[in-house]
């Protein structure tokens, strides 16, 4: 309750990331591709002399990014001392959660269940609360599936 959330569209769905986990939102500059990495790693980019690993959230969850628009901005989050820039369809707004994360009978579908810790109600409607750790840890299940 009352947590600030960064709202974003990912693969056409409204998702939320807890604001305390987000370092900043940046304008994407040039991305240096990194060969021989999983698809969802778009490359690396530099922001204020810091190197970020660019992750395409749609690919990390298991969707085809070609079917969706892409925001020119990215959400920057740090996980285990590595900084990531997460690319999404669109970054929308900052909202306050009006409920605690909750499960829905029947679940959200396999792809979403892996990266989400539940549904939160916000003033703009329900959104999937993303678990950054599982999103960034995508390699194993994703790699195995591929």
């Amino acid at each position: 309750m009352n947590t600030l959330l960064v709202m974003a569209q990912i693969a056409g769905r409204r998702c939320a990331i807890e604001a305390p986990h987000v370092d900043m939102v940046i304008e994407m500059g040039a991305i240096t591709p990194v060969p021989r990495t999983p698809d969802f790693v778009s490359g690396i980019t530099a922001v204020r002399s810091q190197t970020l690993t660019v992750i395409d959230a749609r690919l990390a969850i298991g969707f085809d990014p070609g079917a969706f628009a892409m925001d020119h901005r990215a959400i920057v989050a740090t996980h285990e001392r590595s900084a990531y820039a997460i690319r999404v369809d669109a970054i929308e707004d900052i909202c306050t959660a009006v409920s605690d994360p909750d499960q829905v009978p029947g679940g959200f579908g396999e792809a979403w269940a892996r990266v989400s810790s539940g549904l939160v109600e916000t003033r703009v409607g329900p959104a999937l609360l993303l678990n950054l750790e599982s999103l960034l840890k995508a390699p194993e299940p994703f790699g195995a599936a591929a």
Partner: protein
Amino acid sequence: MDDLLADFVAETREMLEASSGEIVAWEADPTDRARLDTIFRFVHTVKGNCGFFDYPRLAALSHAAEDALADCRAGRREPDSKLVTGVLAIIDRIAAMVDAIEADEEFDTGGDEELIAALAEGDDGTDDPSATQAEQPYLSQTDVQDNPEQDKTAHSRSDTAVAQRSIRLPVDLLDRVMSGVSDMVLARNDLAHRLRQAGTQPMIDGPFERLTSILNDVRDAITRMRMQRIETLFAAFPRLVRDLSQTLDKQVTIDLEGGDVELDREMIEMIRDPLIHIIRNSIDHGIEPPSERKAAGKRKTGSLSIAARQAGNTISIVVSDDGRGLCPDKIGKKAVAMGLITEGEREGMALNDILQTIFQPGFSTAETVSNISGRGVGLDVVRQNLERVGGTISVKSTNGIGTLFTLQIPLTLSIITGLNVVASGQRFSIPQSYVEEIIHSSSRVLDFTTVGETGLVTFRGNRVPCLKLSEVLELPSSDLADDDLTMVMLKLANGDLFALAVDDIHSHSDIVVKPLAPAVMQAGIYAGSSLLDDGMPVLLLDITSIAAQSNIVSDLSRRLHAVPEEDEGNEVKDHSRAMLFTDFVGRRRAIRLDLVKRIETVQTSALDRSGITPRVVIDGAILPIIGLPDGPFEREKLRFLRLSDGDSQLAYAIREVVEAAELSGSLTPVNDDPLVEAVTLLGDETISLLDGHELFARYGEMPTESSKPLCRLPQGEWSRTILAPLLTNAGYEVTSEPGIQEDVAIWFDDEYEAAAAIEMDFAAPVVRLRETPEAPENSPTIYRYDREGLLAALNSARHAGGQR
């Protein structure tokens, strides 16, 4: 209270570290009063402190040790090895208790009384075996390696003679400051790039330069902060050697040298285990038992010496013993038995190469496995650990005389020089330390061939595997033909060579290596990332892993077939080999191979065509050129054969190197071209063989090494970072220091006019640079980005200035 306790723990550890070396030295020379005093001070301080903190057991232990030592000081008791062992055991116990205190655990094993008793027993001279029994199992459990906490203190022990002021800092904080400064350097580079784009702005450039120099200072200082004297590592060794030699019934003295060499704190941690392993090996396998030594006519006491030295960016640590040495026969047989090499290979190997097989995985010659070494983790692990940090290890040995291990390690892990290369349009960085040589491969000298799926090149007579970087990275290969790729010859830590074919070489730079996210590291071919001056991130390649993934490491040494040596022999004897090339007019020509010193690739900007004989600057030497076409060149780089008759040199411009060939056909002299000695048949073609004698008689010149023209540059970041490299490439020596007589000077036009206005005396011809592309009326200035114009102006100014 917690702070006080932490201080107590840290202080005790620091003293522990210092005193373990002292105590062994004292044992060797019990009359050494100074050492005795040091140890006494230690136990005394511990006693005092733990009374203050209410640790009765610590107090009792240190009290007992203090009593015994006090007796020695007062001359009531002679220090013997029993006493020393007892005191050491107590110091060990104190260390273990201090660890427990820090971890906030209960230290519950008893046995303090026995330790104290062991001291007292010796007092009345009776040799009670039970006392020795009591301490023996304890001693064998404890050895320095298993007790890393003891050495965790991050502070170098200041020399006892020179008391340096020091403070204690948490290591985390240091790391944070270090990474902060690294970031500052990167931010500065970014800013520098933007400023360069914006053009010269005196208002900003001045302060910016100041910032740069301050930052460099700070970076230096911080780097030194991370540095630690290697003696912090060495301090534990006397004790280790003593314990080992006692357990093994050997007598060994250790000699440490170069303890003041400093290296990166992390690096010290990385080399700790490898060094300990080598020491264990030396004492266990190398140094003989006293009786055997005596029989061999050596001193009863073996000696082990460890010396550290710094040379440039590497530290070499040499561990040598005077033991029985390594036996190449035994090692060779063993290696064959293990299947590491074949019998045939063993016969062909030099003795020294056979010795290096001890670093191969799965090698151990010890006939019996003792609990000191030979426990399965062998020298291969040592080698691997060292290679992980970019180090190397090698061994030399003379049977019966001794063994010498040499470790080479880089000074620091975090800032390295990188060679930036291009593959499929993307830049990557290679640690400069791996780069042996860069070769433009269009010459067929490299003889790029594909055998099966493996590319091979010939480098200095060896067939060397060749990887294409774009293939390694699974990038679409570029449009460049194989012949146009640039070969970077890389030397792995174990001495194996391989070639990495890249599209182009970009630049060298000092890079601050940053770790990458796990998802990227997973690829296993990157060592980190860094930012280039233009703010773009670049990936640092992990050369060792790339070589390992391509399976060219382990069996590389076997595949590195020397092209049969007879070839070289013939070459010298018969003088009948020649290098075939195509000259600029398209003719096939040959020149005797002995005359060809090197094949050089040179930027056209290094050419000076203003004189009658064109000249080229190669490696600082000015050489006359022959064979150059008239008119402009269609390419940026020219290839030359650098010919030498021993004294004089000249550069022969060629279009392409064809191959080296045997002059087997008969030579038919020709008279129509003085430069041609003869024609001969090679395959189905007639080839003109150039007349070396005539060439040198006409054009040969002693290379004028020192006459690299000196060019004075204006002050400033722009001239240092942009102008200086350009001129250096073009063969100029550059300076901006006052008081040196230059050959030509470059001035910014505004500064020049100011100087001219005060009628300053210009010692050398001046080339003036202007800011704008468009020249004002009647202005003899050059636009500062007009490279061709600038070089031409410098050339003509120099010649006008009297051919200095």
